[in-house]
């Protein structure tokens, strides 16, 4: 039983398709091939042309050795050949011309029996279509139908024909979507039809899925239409240029197609709201094609597939991660369009994305989940937006202070524990991200410090992190959880960011920050404690205790002269606290802080 809605849908669809089919029929009529005749002409060798041959190229054959030819040529000159002699004269022309050809080919003549020429082939040479295959003026039937097919497909499949009412919210959403897609100038996209068909098919499916999974995103707002239009059209054109350049490389072509579709989905679904809420930023860039920012953000990510041939992109970027990158990228390019609109594509966002993907993929494969690179990028991009000129002065990815800091964190924390280390746990992906976040945060929040250490930021960071990590590896044991270790690293970073004097050297050569942490860990993880002290150790090794103790000590230490005497005072206070705990007394942290402050007074 067919419902009324289905019939109405069919009528509407029929009208649409009928109109397009009629136009396709008209185009087809205009395109049809025409066999073109020639004016009247004596085509083929004749007595005149044969005479010219024997007067010129074939002159050497007209001699006493070929008496018959000599005679016939004389008669041809005198125009006295009979019909039979004309035929013989023409035969001799063919014979001697063949000899001439054989000589020119060094007698390498292919002998063919019953040599035939296919009349079809000769006729085909003067059978001409209105347009040649790649003529941009030629209407493409596929293109003509594409918009309608997409329109009907969305209308029919998105919610079932019975549910689409044009005046409903859903109906308006779909109308906006369809209108946007229908506005694409398909004929502008000069590509091989099969590639275009495939691409549009992928985009169509992606658009349908976006619609079905996130109906709340697609509103009847005109900006949605613009977003869909510029995203689809811009990326399709861009991808086709890239695909054309890859012609002949099927592997890379397939890779780019798949990645391009992924990026398209991500741009539509993740960046949609962001763009719709700020249309003037994204859809109205002066002097640029509409939507240049959106498209170029997509392009920057798509380019990963070309610029990093060795990276398995889906291992480095999860779908969720890609969405995050899109959001963060759009956020930063809204304030700094030069990140994607510059002349050099290797500078700015594309270079940054490629740089992160490339560096992340070089780390230990076990550590690299598909969230690391997007997270690193998101963190860097978010903070970049705070002060682009400071963090990224000339848009060279290699000189992005936050990125290089992030990469330093990843490099140090992902390294295997050294031989002989007591604490051998390896950091998880989320630990790397947490510490990176802290590092980037601290750098962003302390621009003065960042400026003061300028290009040495990386070196200072390495010193602080390596020294702290070394303390953890050498002093702690399996009782130190990864969470506590991360907290310690974060505390150390914050301390160094607050006061660069924490990097001054202690008498044992360690940076002060590491020396202080070493004192704490030496007390907590002392190996030869007796049974009576185990309760104290149990109390001290708790996460909250370590965290509080370290923060308190570092804070008070920063207020001290930060010299050898200060270190001794700290050591003394820690010892007292441990002895108190061993005696069965609860640790009074307020009293600990007070006593420490007094002991560290200059």
């Amino acid at each position: 039983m067919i419902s009324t809605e289905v019939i109405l849908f069919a009528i509407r669809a029929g009208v649409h398709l009928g109109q397009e089919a009629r136009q396709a029929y008209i185009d087809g009529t205009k395109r049809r091939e025409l066999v073109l005749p020639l004016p009247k002409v004596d085509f083929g060798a004749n007595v005149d042309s044969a005479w010219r041959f024997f007067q010129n190229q074939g002159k050497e054959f007209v001699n006493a050795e070929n008496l018959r030819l000599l005679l016939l040529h004389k008669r041809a000159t005198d125009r006295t050949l009979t019909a039979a002699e004309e035929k013989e004269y023409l035969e001799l022309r063919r014979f001697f011309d063949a000899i001439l050809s054989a000589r020119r080919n060094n007698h390498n003549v292919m002998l063919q029996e019953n040599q035939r020429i296919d009349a079809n082939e000769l006729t085909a040479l003067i059978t001409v279509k209105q347009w040649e295959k790649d003529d941009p003026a030629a209407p493409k039937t596929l293109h003509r139908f594409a918009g309608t097919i997409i329109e009907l497909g969305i209308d029919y499949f998105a919610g079932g024909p019975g549910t689409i009412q044009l005046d409903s919210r859903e109906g308006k959403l779909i109308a906006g979507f369809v209108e946007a897609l229908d506005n694409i100038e398909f004929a502008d996209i000069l590509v091989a039809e099969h590639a275009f068909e495939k691409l549009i098919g992928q985009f169509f499916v992606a658009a349908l899925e976006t619609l079905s999974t996130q109906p709340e995103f697609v509103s009847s707002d005109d900006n949605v239409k613009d977003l869909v239009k510029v995203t689809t059209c811009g990326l399709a054109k861009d991808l086709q240029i890239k695909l054309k350049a890859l012609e002949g490389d099927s592997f890379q072509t397939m890779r780019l197609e798949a990645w391009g579709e992924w990026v398209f989905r991500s741009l539509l679904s993740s960046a949609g709201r962001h763009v719709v809420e700020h249309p003037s930023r994204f859809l109205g860039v002066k002097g640029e094609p509409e939507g240049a920012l959106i498209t170029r953000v997509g392009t920057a990510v798509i380019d990963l597939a070309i610029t990093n041939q060795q990276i398995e992109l889906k291992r480095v970027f999860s779908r969720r991660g890609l969405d995050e990158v899109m959001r963060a990228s759009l956020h930063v390019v809204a304030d700094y369009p030069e990140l994607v609109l510059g002349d050099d594509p290797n500078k700015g966002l594309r270079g940054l994305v490629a740089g992160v993907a490339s560096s992340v993929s070089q780390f230990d494969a076990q550590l690299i989940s598909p969230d690391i690179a997007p997270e690193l990028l998101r963190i860097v991009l978010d903070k970049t937006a705070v002060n682009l000129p400071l963090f990224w002065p000339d848009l060279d990815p290699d000189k992005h202070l936050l990125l290089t800091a992030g990469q330093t964190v990843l490099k140090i924390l992902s390294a295997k524990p050294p031989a002989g280390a007591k604490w051998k746990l390896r950091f998880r992906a989320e630990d790397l991200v947490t510490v990176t976040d802290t590092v980037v945060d601290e750098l962003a929040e302390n621009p003065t410090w960042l400026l003061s250490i300028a290009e040495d930021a990386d070196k200072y960071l390495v010193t602080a992190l390596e020294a702290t990590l070394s303390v953890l590896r050498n002093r702690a044991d399996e009782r130190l959880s990864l969470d506590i270790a991360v907290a310690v690293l974060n505390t150390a970073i914050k301390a160094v960011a607050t006061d660069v004097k924490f990097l001054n050297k202690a008498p044992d050569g360690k940076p002060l920050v590491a020396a202080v942490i070493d004192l704490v860990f030496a007390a907590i993880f002392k190996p030869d404690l007796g049974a009576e002290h185990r309760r104290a150790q149990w109390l001290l090794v708790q996460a909250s205790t370590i965290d509080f103790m370290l923060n308190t000590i570092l804070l008070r230490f920063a207020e001290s002269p930060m010299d050898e005497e200060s270190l001794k005072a700290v050591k003394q206070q820690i010892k007292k606290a441990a002895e108190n705990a061993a005696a069965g007394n609860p640790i009074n942290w307020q009293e600990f802080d007070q006593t420490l402050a007094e002991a560290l007074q200059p």
Partner: protein
Amino acid sequence: MHTPKKPKLLITPVLRFLVLWVVLFILTGCQGAQKLRDAQNAFNEGARLENELMFKSAFKQYGLNVNDQNVIGAPSVGRPEPHYAAALEILQSIGDAGNAELEKDRLLGTKITLEALCQWKLGRGTQAISLAETALDHLDAENEPRDWVIAQALPALVISDEAYARIPNVFTGKDQSKFDDIENRLLTADRSAKTYIDKATGRAKDRPIEIWLLQVELSLYSSWLKARSNILGERELPEKEKGLLIGKCERLETIGKRYAHEDQKKAAKELADGWRETIFGTINP
């Protein structure tokens, strides 16, 4: 959130309806275009026959066999003229309403061009040229490149045929003024056939239709040579024209190979050689 669903059972009747609707749309809305297609078919049939006759006689002369089995439009009997006449009759049966419909669909220029070709082939040169001029008013070099080139070149076809008809088949004595008249018509006058070919060549260059246009030009020179021989009694080919025509034959071979399918490339060479033999008497000029 709405969950999409596919009402599979409903697809078949809906598709049936769509097909019916589309067919109805085409049948009821494209009668002018339909007649144009019929006329194109008839004209193509005539042109195939004519070309086939030309190639057959020429290549049999060279000792090559044109494959009768593969001739398009078999059986290859009869003359092309009835087909041209049929095409013209169909085109003339399209009334004012049909022409208006064709104009709306930007097919009127294509229709008038074909009509001009038919008139030319049926020997009505004046009507053909007049129609070609009208066709150009409805054609755009960018959007209808083939038809524009044909309409632009059509006066050359008429002039060439008329000049050819004035050339005697045998030499009967030198007649300079008669030769000058034919030479003017073919190559040298302000409105010679050659000037129309030159106009069309700009748009035809590097396109498949250049193959046809080159052959039209070679036809002009072939007739000119015949006129030199049979009216002036001069068979030798002047050096200036020799160089020019060698270049045209080479161009024909090159462009033919470029636009031909793989299995037609040999035919492109044979076609160029056919013209070399016509003009120079050798495939090695």
